[in-house]
């Protein structure tokens, strides 16, 4: 029965369908990578290891890397063919998040730029 249902299933988000030892390993690798990326973010923000004007970009890159680590190792969202539904939903979510954040920042920056200096 279990074999049958696995054969017919779409992939369940949050579940890694391998033997349990591999899953323990997955969580531990994810934890290690996440800690590493967190420490890198804090170090980069507090020192001048990176070219200073590039620090915000560096921090954003590190944040995206860490979100990727969380998605793959903790939420087990993969790229295999069984993951189509989960990944398509995620892609739509990312699209909307991107539109809301970048759109807002863009529009408000443009309004700011067009604003006259008002007398105080």
């Amino acid at each position, binding site marked *: 029965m279990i074999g049958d249902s696995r*054969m017919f299933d*779409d992939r369940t988000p*949050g579940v890694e369908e391998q033997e349990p030892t591999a899953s323990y390993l997955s*969580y531990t690798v994810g934890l290690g990578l996440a800690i590493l990326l967190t420490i890198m973010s*804090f170090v980069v923000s507090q020192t001048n290891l990176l070219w200073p004007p590039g*620090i915000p970009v560096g921090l954003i890159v590190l944040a995206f890397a860490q*979100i990727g680590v969380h998605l793959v190792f903790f939420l087990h969202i993969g790229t295999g063919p069984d993951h189509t539904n989960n990944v398509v939903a995620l892609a739509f979510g990312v699209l909307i*998040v991107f539109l809301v954040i970048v759109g807002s*920042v863009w529009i408000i920056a443009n309004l700011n730029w067009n604003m006259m200096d008002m007398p105080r």
Partner: protein
Amino acid sequence: MTIATVDFVPTELARGRGGGGPASTRTVVAYGFWIFLLSDFILFSGLFAAYAVLSGNTAGGPTGAELFNLRNVFIETMCLLFSSYTAGLGALSAERRQPGSFLIFSAFTFVLGAAFLVIEAREFARMVAEGAGPSHSGFLSAFFTLVGTHGVHVTSGLIFLVYMVAQVVAKGLRPHVLRRLLCFSLFWHALDIIWVGVFTLVYLMGAR
């Protein structure tokens, strides 16, 4: 009368497009919860956008660089990260029908999540006591809304966790309890993803 059985042998495995028939309840439940989590990310995207727009509007009040204590933020980050890890291990123990280790991992998850909330609440109390409350400037309104909403999510996650532990104790690791547990662990990992955005955009960029 004979009972009809499905006796065909699939020549090809299902490829995630419904080809092999309807998905299991577990898959459908987790997929629905995944959609909910994505809608939660969209909620947060509005708050992130508001913060990004308002972060410079300090109205002559304190800036992030003056207010934030990065050492505390680092401890908070580690609390959430390790609680995500123990939540994952707890979910694995439940899958392997080991209620004992599930309870131990859940206790760790709860303590780490509660430690995060205590540190955050003390930060908020300190800021309000210094006169940097949410009503002071656009920057602080956006800050308290964004970080506070995340804190409310962590609080509801802890309530969810207590509720799940109670169900495991009362009912055991039955399939429907395991499905709810899967939703909890998805929720808890998703909170950690939001926190990555918060500590990067709010604290690390704000403290420079």
